[in-house]
Each structure stands twice: as C-alpha cells, then as structure tokens.
C-alpha cells in the first residue's frame, strides 16, 4: 500500500515537472513584448488636427507612440496622467522623450480646438503632440481605439457639461499597431517594461 502511494506521488511529480518545464520552454519562445492578440481588432488609421495641420497615424509611425485621451477642462485626472507619463519616461532615461511620440487627444470636440489643446499639452512639455478633431473625427478614432466618452450636462455648473472619458494609456509600436493599453503606468511596471523592449 505504502509503496503504491509513493509511486503515484512520484509519477504525479514527474508529470508536474514536465508540464512546468514545457511551459517555461514555450514561454521563452514567445516574443518579448506580448501583444496577446487582444488588440488585433483595435486601432488603425485616423486623422486629427494639430496646431500645425493634419496629423494621421502614418505621421506617428517610425517611433513608438503613447496615446492618452482626455479633455482640457479636466481638473486633475488628465494633468495627473500627462505628468505621470513624463515622469515614467524620465525614469527610463531623459533621452527617451525624443525617441517616442507622446500624444494627447482631446475628445471634447465642442470646446477644444487645436490651439487650446496645444497650449494645454505644452504646459507639461514642449514635445507633446496635442490633437483636436471634429465630431466625426473624434467619433471615428474613439470607436477604433475603444475609448468611451460621453458629454454629460452639468445643469447648475458654469462648465455647462463635462466629458466622461476612459482614462487609459495606449502604447503603439513604430508600425502604428497597438502593443498594449494600461490604466496604471506608475505602480504597474508593465508599461515601462514594454516601452523599454520596444526601444531596444
């Protein structure tokens, strides 16, 4: 009886070892930046307006890009997010700023024009590419990138309305394809690791 149990345990242990070993082996064959396939159907071309003229996805290709969607009447979440992005990139290395496109896109097509958005982005650093768009253009890009935004009336507020929006960072490779999206780029090291891999 005792012997049988021992043999069973040994067999199980052997199976486990083979299983874990093969898993490790296959994992090591996977590309360094996992694209998971989740974003294969997301992303794609768009055209928006920069203070200097039209900007499309093709203008961003050649370098990795980070996209963040927000609006300029946002009191803290948008400024916090753009600040965080600069801080994370500083940490990777100050020169990294020049190796990527940092893109801020305002979904508030009613209030934000290219000039206002540009002024807003420049507050964080001169190298932000800040983009505005028409209703049609914003609806197009938010649909393609699965960004939720919604105009919500604030009836007693001098603001008139606010814009509920997804707070998320989109990392695009130099080919313009989405690598991954991140809700937290400070405490979760995934963003930093993925960006570093893309820059290798």
């Amino acid at each position: 009886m005792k012997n049988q149990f021992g043999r069973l345990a040994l067999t199980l242990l052997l199976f486990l070892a083979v299983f874990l070993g093969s898993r490790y082996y296959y994992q090591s064959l996977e590309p360094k930046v996992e694209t998971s396939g989740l974003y294969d159907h997301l992303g794609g071309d768009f055209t928006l307006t920069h203070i200097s003229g039209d900007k499309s996805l093709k203008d961003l290709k050649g370098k990795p890009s980070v996209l963040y969607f927000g609006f300029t009447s946002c009191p803290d979440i948008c400024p916090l997010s753009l600040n965080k992005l600069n801080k994370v990139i500083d940490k990777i290395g100050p020169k990294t700023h020049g190796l990527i496109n940092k893109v801020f896109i305002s979904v508030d097509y009613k209030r934000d024009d290219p000039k206002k958005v540009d002024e807003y982005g420049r507050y964080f650093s001169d190298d932000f590419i800040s983009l505005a768009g028409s209703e049609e253009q914003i609806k197009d890009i938010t649909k393609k990138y699965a960004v939720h935004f919604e105009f919500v009336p604030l009836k007693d507020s001098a603001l008139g309305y606010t814009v509920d929006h997804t707070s998320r960072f989109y990392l695009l490779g130099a080919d313009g394809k989405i690598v991954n999206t991140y809700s937290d780029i400070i405490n979760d090291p995934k963003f930093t690791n993925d960006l570093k891999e893309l820059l290798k």
Partner: protein
Amino acid sequence: MKFAALITLLTLSSFAQEVKNPWIKKPIIGMTGAYMVIQNNTNKEVSLIRVEGEDAKHYEIHTHTKVDGVMKMRQIKELVINPKKSVELKPMSYHIMMLEIPKKKIKNLSGKMKLIFSNGKTIEITAPVKEL
C-alpha cells in the same frame, strides 16, 4: 494639567469646522481644482454649501469617480461632513472647481477663498498654489 485640558477643549470647540492643508493645483488654462481637509468638530452633521473667492468667476463643489475605467466628474450641491469626522478633498476625488480664472490672474492667484457651511459658519482660507 486640568487647566490645560480645559483650554484645549475651549480652543477646539471654538472651531466648529477646521480646514487643514489647503492648496490649489497650478492652473494650466482658466480652470483648476482646490483641495483641503475639512474637519467637523461638532456633534452634528454639517455641509459645505458654497465657496466664494476672488481668483475665479465661479467656485463649485465637485466630485470625481472612476467607474469601469471611466472618469466621471459631477457637481454636488453640498459636501456632507459627519459629526467628529473629516473629509479630504484631493485629486481624483472631491474638489472645489475654480472656473473662468481671468488670463492675467492665472499666474498669480491670491488663493483666498471663503467656505460657507450649512450651520451658518464661514471659514476664510488662503490656499497656496502647487504643482500637481
């Protein structure tokens, strides 16, 4: 010792509401948020019902919540502070929204504002401007 305790008690009770660590986020364009901790030292619930000041045309009480990754900002009529409790106004949460700050004031806010409470009390504060 007893005397000291009495003095402390008197001082505390003379501040029905207290404001700690007020600050204003440096505005980028004509709007920003003001943050602080408001403490209610009374045995009754009290609400912040209005804010006045000279830096912005409008001061509103707002809240910010994140629901399924979506940020939602809403105006609230009053900010309730429970008896003997405090409420923290901070980024991505409750804030005093300062709207329509004139261009020439953006770079030199006085930070002065007056908080008006439901029990008739008012507190005047000067909030320093800080980077987020």
